């Protein structure tokens, strides 16, 4: 066991820190609004220009071929520097791992550089009005159109984060009407400017137009936009959910940065805080540390060739509940200033409350832990 980063990793850290200190912009408007999204795109393109957008990708796609350890180091530095949230994270962290695993060479060459460069901006088209936690219940259809050389998509996706601002969607559609549940689904990449697509922004709890409903009326999608095999979409999609629940979307760096900010707030406000708040603050810091250490173990196992399976449900439960608790502690310290969004903590709190809901609700995650980690019978 060795819990230290080596000299090369620390040199990588120093390089990232220097670049971030010189380049991170001041606070931007929320990336989940039209104005803020544009400002964030500018930032994404600056990251890409200096090859910091996708550090863990191969150089040919715009990355640095960084190791998982270096990626963790970069993430720690990124969030420590107070850099903007990643508006194209769905493409980078959710779609790209799936493209690397299931994409054809043509698809990889076509999309990965454009995702890295924030030119193709993907949103996720999974949830439907009647298929949230029960993802296998999706009803949107893909109907074969041999004359058109592809598939016709019909149906509706919803709660699509940044759907109003993105230009592409990756999503699951039912391609075999005879098959049930998780069989007979196909994974498509869909340009949102295609004929028959309608995107309607939906105001989100936190006040941003971050959500959208996306309607598909006989949208023609050519065969080269099918990711993985036809009717095998569930298996392809599950590779992405592990990314979303676990490591790639929620690296420890962001929770470490939030915990450090919370301790700073406590230092300025906490002198008169009641002991319960002091406990909440130290718990948040310790939980961020626990998440960091646990991730080190996960990465060690991944590098030894193990895959991240149901374990990702532990991670999703832990980071999402840690994030809510951290913001609640901050709001406790702020008292009435919380209502005024002092320090952005109220906005952050509202965002954190989505964590236990998206990427599979925490109730579903507890079922996954019980059934697939502990081996309890399905209900």
């Amino acid at each position, binding site marked *: 066991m060795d*819990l*230290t980063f080596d000299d090369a990793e620390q040199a990588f850290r120093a390089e990232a820190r220097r670049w971030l200190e010189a380049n991170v912009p001041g606070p931007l408007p929320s990336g989940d609004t039209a104005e803020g999204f544009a400002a964030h795109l500018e930032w994404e393109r600056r990251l890409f220009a200096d090859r910091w957008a996708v550090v863990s990708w191969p150089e040919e796609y715009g990355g640095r071929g960084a190791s998982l350890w270096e990626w963790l180091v970069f993430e720690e530095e990124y969030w420590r520097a107070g850099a903007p949230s990643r508006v194209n994270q769905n493409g980078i962290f959710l779609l790209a791992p799936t493209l690397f695993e299931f994409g054809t060479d043509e698809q990889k060459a076509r999309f990965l550089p454009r995702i890295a460069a924030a030119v193709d901006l993907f949103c996720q088209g999974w949830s439907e009005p009647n298929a949230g936690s029960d993802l296998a219940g999706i009803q949107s259809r893909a109907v074969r159109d041999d004359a058109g050389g592809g598939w016709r998509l019909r149906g509706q996706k919803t709660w699509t984060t940044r759907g109003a601002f993105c230009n592409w969607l990756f999503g699951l559609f039912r391609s075999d009407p005879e098959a049930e549940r998780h069989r007979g689904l196909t994974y498509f990449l869909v340009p949102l400017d295609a004929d028959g697509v309608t995107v309607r922004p939906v105001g989100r709890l936190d006040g941003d137009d971050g959500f959208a409903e996306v309607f598909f009326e006989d949208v023609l999608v050519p065969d080269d936009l099918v990711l993985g095999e036809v009717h095998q979409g569930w298996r392809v999609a599950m590779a992405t959910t592990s990314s979303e629940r676990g490591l790639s979307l929620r690296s420890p760096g962001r929770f470490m940065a939030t915990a450090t900010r919370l301790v700073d707030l406590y230092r300025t406000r906490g002198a008169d805080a009641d002991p319960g708040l002091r406990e909440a603050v130290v718990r948040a810091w310790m939980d961020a540390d626990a998440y960091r250490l646990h991730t*080190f173990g996960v990465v060690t196992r991944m590098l030894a060739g193990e895959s991240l399976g149901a374990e990702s449900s532990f991670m999703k439960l832990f980071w999402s509940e840690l994030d809510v608790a951290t913001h609640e502690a901050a709001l406790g310290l702020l008292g009435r200033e919380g209502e005024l969004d002092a320090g952005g903590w109220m906005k952050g709190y509202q965002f954190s409350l989505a964590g236990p809901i998206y990427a599979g609700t925490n109730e579903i995650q507890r079922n996954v832990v*019980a059934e697939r*980690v502990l081996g*309890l019978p399905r209900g």
Partner: protein
Amino acid sequence: MRFAFTEDQLALRDAVRDLLARECPPAAVRAAWDEPAGRVPGLWSRLAEMGVVGALASEGHGGMGFSALDLVLLLEESGRAVAPEPLVGVAAVAIPLLEEIGGDLAAEWLPAITSGEAIVAVGLDGASRERSTADGMLVEDADAAALLLLAAGDEVHAVLRTDLDVVPQRSVDGSRRVAHLDWAPTPATRVAGGARGRALADAAFDRGAFGTAAVLVGLGAAMLEQAVEYAKEREQFGRPIGSFQAVKHHLANAALRLEYARPIVHRAAHTLARGGERARDASMAKAYASEAAHGAARSSLQVHGAIGYTVEHDLHLFLKRTWALEAAWGDAPQHRERVARRVLDGPPEAADWNP
């Protein structure tokens, strides 16, 4: 960076697990309740032969010259088997303390301790702020010990069992032999004082917290496993109770707490072995392990239902050990406060992982 144990460390863990499965089944623990010493006859010498007792003693003193990283999984195994042996007090605390004291005392006692012939007990008072969490001199295995290492204020004393009186107390766990001491420090027994004495006692406290945390993680894992097995077999309403979401979520919560306590405990072992923020990391280990084991105990009993509430079922052996140990060597609130003093009240860099 590599957060994993070596093949050797895992092999030794497996060997200890096998030994305890053979020689320390729940029936043996149950029988130990009625033994005067509260122990499983012969088990201590088997653990000594395997090098578990003397893991942290230097080879010159008959030990293995191992570090906390080699010992931590073995302590977990002792918890998993609810073994009623004084491994934390002797192997994790007293032996490193004697090695640090050194000199004639170490040379005289360590060979007999590592070979399993002599037991040494440790008692720390709460005089120091660092140890305000200490055990109020409720000393484990004081009666059976030949030697007691006792901290009073800044002083550490080495006292022969024959030179003091012990007042046995009854623990909720019938295999534990704990006692108050009728003792006052005298210059004759003093082996260290001042800054050195305080540093020795503080280090002993950290090691006791760490070692107990490892045992608690093992206890928690065992109680969770038993509850999972029971929930798969027990049927009500025509189906296994483990198929009900309310039961699943109890057990998932217990599993989640243990999943995140374990790396914290293993990091504390790394810090003890290689250096770092020893007090902070030992305290985090005890705080997380105490809560995780407490939660596992609670969920396990609830899932077992009325059968778990009987003394005929083995679960109570694990529950009672857990309740005793979660408060021993400082409970979770005390250790969290110890972390808070460092992270919240210390210099700003203390809260930044990469200042």
